């Protein structure tokens, strides 16, 4: 079991309120991802759940039990830190055994779980090394191993992959997803990499300045962002926003068009512009178009390659059914 509820939780550091009253329920077995810009309170929220930070008011409820005043060691949660936070004076084996030793598990059971975890995480050959003798990826695996052996009711991850290089990150992302599919244990995962958020999450929680902007499945957030902030935050490259006359034609204050929902032509279309930079990725092409008469640069994403270069004239046409409309407050209008 691992159902986590936050009820009117607030957090202030001194006079600064980092989390205004917040309510959120994370269901048992769910993979929830917290995303948001730097400093928005993702880590703080995770640490409130862990108990590493005390709430200023409100309640943290785990499996229907009020855990607000319970110390982190008694909450039955496991955490994986960005810095790995392994015990440098202990071998990998001792690191992984540590939570089990603290829980008073018998030695045979400890050994059994260490062996299983080491096998699952490819650590069998490194069990007798100290963390200092491991690569970043191996250290992260040890940290995960240390978390899984104690069979927690939920896992908390705070940007666990951000210290790894790109290729390793993709590999570990898959491993964690597979781990979740296999174990079906609640996981809360903090990241500011929206690809991680989109690919891993059952549900994404988008935060801004400590406020939940939207909670939903990755595709809900993508197709029906509740406001301009979520629309701009989810999706890569970012959604294009257009205000003024063009928006008024659609009866909105601002309209949003995703780069991938725009047709490009060299001969005809709705808006005419000049190619600034064209990024050819092979599978996709990102074209940044200037001088469209709309505010700023308009980014287009097309599948495959297209022969446009810096300085070429192009015509853009948004897909009519993919235009997002927002009112003066930035809220979505149907």
């Amino acid at each position: 079991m691992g159902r986590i509820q936050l009820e009117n939780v607030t957090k202030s550091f001194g006079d600064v309120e980092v989390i205004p009253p917040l309510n959120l329920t994370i269901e048992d077995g769910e993979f929830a991802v917290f995303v948001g810009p730097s400093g928005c309170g993702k880590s703080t929220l995770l640490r409130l759940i862990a108990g590493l930070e005390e709430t200023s008011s409100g309640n943290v409820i785990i499996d229907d039990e009020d855990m607000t005043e319970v110390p982190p060691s008694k909450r039955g949660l496991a955490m994986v830190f960005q810095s790995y936070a392994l015990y440098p004076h202990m071998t990998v084996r001792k690191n992984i055994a540590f939570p089990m030793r603290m829980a008073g598990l018998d030695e045979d059971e400890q050994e059994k779980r260490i062996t299983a975890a080491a096998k699952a995480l490819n650590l069998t050959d490194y069990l007798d090394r100290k963390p200092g003798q491991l690569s970043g990826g191996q250290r992260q695996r040890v940290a995960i191993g240390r978390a899984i052996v104690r069979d927690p009711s939920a896992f908390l991850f705070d940007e666990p992959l951000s210290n790894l290089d790109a290729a390793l990150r993709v590999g570990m992302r898959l491993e964690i997803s597979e781990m979740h599919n296999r174990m079906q244990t609640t996981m809360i995962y903090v990241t500011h990499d929206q690809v991680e958020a989109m690919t891993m999450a059952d549900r994404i929680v988008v935060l801004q300045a400590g406020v939940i902007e939207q909670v939903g499945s990755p595709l809900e957030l993508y197709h029906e962002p509740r406001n301009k902030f979520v629309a701009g935050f989810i999706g890569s490259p970012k959604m294009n926003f257009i205000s003024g006359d063009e928006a008024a034609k659609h009866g909105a204050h601002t309209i949003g068009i995703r780069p991938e929902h725009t047709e490009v032509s060299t001969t005809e279309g709705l808006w005419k512009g000049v190619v600034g930079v064209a990024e050819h990725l092979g599978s996709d092409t990102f074209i940044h178009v200037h001088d469209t008469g709309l505010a700023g640069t308009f980014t287009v994403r097309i599948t495959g390659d297209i022969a446009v270069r810096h300085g070429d004239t192009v015509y853009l046409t948004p897909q009519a059914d993919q235009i997002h409309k927002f009112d003066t407050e930035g809220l979505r209008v149907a």
Partner: protein
Amino acid sequence: MAIVAQSSKLSNVLWPVLAWIVGLLFFFPIFWMVLTSFKTDADAVKPEYLLWFTPTLDNYLNMTENYDYWRFARNSVITSVFATIFTLVVGIPAAYAMAFNPTKRTKDVLMWMLSTKMLPAAAVLYPMTFLTKSLGLFDTHFMIILVLSLINLPIVIWMLFTYFKEIPKDIIEAGKMDGVDTLGEIKEILIPLAWGGIASTALLCFIFCWNEAYWTVRLTTTDAATLSKLIEGNRAPEGLFFGRLSAVSTAAVGPIVVLGWFCQKQLVQGLTFGAVK
């Protein structure tokens, strides 16, 4: 280029020479003390026996036979060991709390602790003596251990605090998540990680306790009298017993020098830990 090369050549010679001079300056009084301890009291003041004299062990034999050196030494060991243990038992949790759960006032608390060292001991001599006597603690091990602990606590906490500060907070927090309570954090994580720092702090504290003279001389007579008291007792105003005094002093600093020698590596490592990082 040429200038750089030359100046580095110069400093290659200059620094070792300077280091030797400073080293010898520091070492000379100790050398002189040890040398004098092998002279008779009469020879000790005669210029013609400055370096060439007939060495004698009389001073040392005299000391163990007539002055009960071993009792003083035992008292020094007891008071220094227990004071060091007590100081660490109080100091480690205190430094831990301030390093990992700081509040707005932590800096002030640290400053306040240090400020207690600014009070001249002489200013509290009378009240301390009076209190000690009226509580019936005069010339007891307990009182000496208490006094030695209290005068060393501020510096010990400061040192431990700086070592603990070097430990990433995440590691302590990982410990909390892994199910250890506060005592477990200290025992399982903090002490093993800060072992070098704790050992050098303990050693320094022990040396300070061993060499402490102001209070040990004034708050003891016989039962709890330490080696400092023994030295003090052999100090004659006329200066006639230099040989004897030197022997007592040599015998008093001997154990600590040997201890320091064995722990040298540990001590240097601990004391430069912060600087190297």
